[in-house]
Structures are given as C-alpha cells and as structure tokens.
C-alpha cells in the first residue's frame, strides 16, 4: 500500500517537474540592457589592462633605470670628489719619483742630447699645459692612470730607455698642472653636467607620458635616450674605476 502511494507521489511529482521546468516568468523591461552594461563594465578593465600593461611595464623600467642612473652618478660624483681631495699628495709623490727617475736616465745617456730634449719637453709641456684646462676629465684621468702603471713596471732595457723620455712628456704635464685647480675645474664641470642630466630625465619622462597617452611617434626618441642613459652609466663607471686605480 505504501509502495503504491510512493509511486503515485513520484509520478505526480514528475508530472509537476515537467510543468514547472517549462514555466516561464515575465521579464521586466530593460533587464538585458542592465546586463549588457554590467558585462561592459566587467570586461572594460581587462581590456584596459591588456592594452596598458606593456606601457606601464616600460614606464616602470624607464623610471627604475633613470633613478638608478641618477643615483649612481651621484655616488660616482661623490667618489670622484673624495678621490680628487686625496689626489694632490699622491700625484706629487708619483711625480717626484718620476722626475728622479727621468733625471737618472738622462744622466746615464751621454749619447742623447739631453739638454735639447729637456728644452723640447719643457716647451711641449708648456704648450700642453694650456689646453689641459679644456680637455675633458676622462682624458686627464687616463693620463694619471698611465703614471700608476709606470710605477709598477720593471725598468726598461737599454734600447727601450732611449724612447722613454718621449712617453714621459705626459708626466711632466701632470706636474705642471695645479691639482687644486683641477679639482675646482672638475667640480664646476660636474655642476654643469648634473643640471642637463636632470633636464634630460624630465624630458624623457615627458616623452614617456606622451607615448602612454597615445603618441607612439616619440618612442624612437625614448629608445635613443635609454641608450644615452646606459652609455652615460658605463662611462661613469669606467671613470670611477680609473680614479680608484690612481689612488
């Protein structure tokens, strides 16, 4: 009896199920428009993200590079300043050693016309000492580096000794330069260089902003600026290394 009632119940429910599953309720007006607007709102941020993420990533990298470059140049400049402060004593010592070395070589070589040579050297030194003020810092550093290397080298052979004074003309130039004056020059050069760097960074950021706003024409210029920043960084790093080698 119970089984038959259960069966009846189930058959009744399955009949209801068929009816109920086909039931259709009226839909209020404008519901699809609401749905469409919500779907638009849901999808738009993704599209924006997809379109902008490469630009955002590039901007982040550019800012990072710019910050890193400016930071390292600050560090480099402070290192250079501290290095230059120490420079006079070391350069003087090195120069004195070199003078003594050259004099001993000059005495030992009777075949060479030392007096003429010395006159020529001093003349060249005087001539060279004036343009030194205009030469860039990097070149001046290279000259100093040469001195440091020469201090460590073994004394040259008899044949090679004849040629040495010509090379060491450069050393005489170093002696004639007032190191304090050089420091002042370097400081003023640095001050001059720092201002354009900041301006360049500002221009670079402006260009990046323009590219993000949708002006891709500036992109090639930005890439060039990246290269310039990278080159400047490498150059500064080399300069620092050279400074430390001198010390």
């Amino acid at each position: 009896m119970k089984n038959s009632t259960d069966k009846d119940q189930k058959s009744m429910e399955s009949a209801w199920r068929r009816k109920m599953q086909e039931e259709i309720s009226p839909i209020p007006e404008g519901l699809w428009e609401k749905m469409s607007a919500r779907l638009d709102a849901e999808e738009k941020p993704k599209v924006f993200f997809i379109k902008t993420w490469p630009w955002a990533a590039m901007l982040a990298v550019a800012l990072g590079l710019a910050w890193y470059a400016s930071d390292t140049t600050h560090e480099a400049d402070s290192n250079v300043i501290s290095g230059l402060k120490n420079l006079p004593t070391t350069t003087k010592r090195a120069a004195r050693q070199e003078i003594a070395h050259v004099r001993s070589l000059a005495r030992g070589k009777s075949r060479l016309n030392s007096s003429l040579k010395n006159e020529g050297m001093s003349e060249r030194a005087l001539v060279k000492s004036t343009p030194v003020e205009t030469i860039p810092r990097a070149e001046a550093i290279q000259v100093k580096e040469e001195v440091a290397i020469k201090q460590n080298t073994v004394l040259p052979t008899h044949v090679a000794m004849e040629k040495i004074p010509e090379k060491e003309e450069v050393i005489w130039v170093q002696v004639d330069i007032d190191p304090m004056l050089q420091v002042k020059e370097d400081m003023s050069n640095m001050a001059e260089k720092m201002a354009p760097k900041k301006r360049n960074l500002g221009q670079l950021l402006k260009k990046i902003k323009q590219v993000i706003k949708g002006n891709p024409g500036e992109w090639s210029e930005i890439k060039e600026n990246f290269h310039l920043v990278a080159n400047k960084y490498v150059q500064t790093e080399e300069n620092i290394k050279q400074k430390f080698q001198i010390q």
Partner: protein
Amino acid sequence: MTQIYTSQTHERDLVQACKRRDRKGQEAVFKRLAGKMMAVCKRYLGAGPLAEDVFMEGFMKVFTKIDLFQEQGSFEGWVRRIMVNEALMALRKEGKMKFQETDFGYEIGQTEDAYVNLEVEELNKLIESLPLGYKTVFNLYAIEGYTHQEIAEMLGIQEGTSKSQLSRARGLLQQKLNELHV
C-alpha cells in the same frame, strides 16, 4: 561580418558565441533562457527584488564563467544549476535558511488525477505556501531532481534532515490539496 542569432540557432552555436564574448550571442542566450531562469529564482525566493538580483547575478556568472562549461551536458541544465546555487546562497546570506522539525502529522494518501493535472500557477501557490525549509528541499528534490545526498551537501545539512523535510513538505502539500478539492 556580424552573425545573426534566432530562436532556431543551435544551443552549441550560442555557447560558442558566448565563449567568444559575442554580445549578440549573449543576448540571444539571455532572451532564450531568461523567462525560465526567472521562474527558478522566484520559486526559491518569491516574487520580489531579491529574485531579480539573484537572476542578474546568476546570468553574470553564466557569461563570465562560460569557459567552464564542458559542453557535455545540457547548457540549460548548467545555467539552471547556477541559478539554483545563487538562490541558495542568497537565502543563506539573508539568514532565512531554517529547517523546521515540526511534524504536522499528515499521512500521504492516495494521489488523485486532479492533483497531477494542477496548473502551474496553482502548483506555485501551493509550493509558495510551504515553510522555507520544506519548500527549498521540495523544490530541489521534486522539481530540480537532485538526490538527498546532493541536497544535504548543497544546504549543509544531514541527509536524514533532507528526507524528513521532504516528507513533511509532501504531507503539508497533501493537506493543502485536500483542502483545495473538498
């Protein structure tokens, strides 16, 4: 070239259109299933703004999670399941989901043909008159076709509770049907 979707368009094509985020395809799906899904929402939540909100949330989920549809079963069945789950979640949020253990003491008697031939509106009124716990379990078991085990998992109750709720719902319905046809 924009594709035109009609009432004759195959369900599979509509699903593909939805997966491509084709707005026309989504609109066709919405218009095809909206009436039925609104009925589902109203059956669980009653006619009101809550049912409409759940309906919208349900369809949003359908369109945003369409990639999860494996195209093995019926698309309508998948959409219906989403609607039911959304409705149950809304009930839980509202804190309305309570299961009465009161036994009305009605025996399930012989069913008559008149009961089977009840109109949908009458059926809806009958089901609507049930307490929420009974109504939910009855809807899930008798109308949607879930098993007691599935219902227990969905509602976070014991399987026995689901069975007792269904039994009491049936008893109460029987009583109401008898009252209707006296």
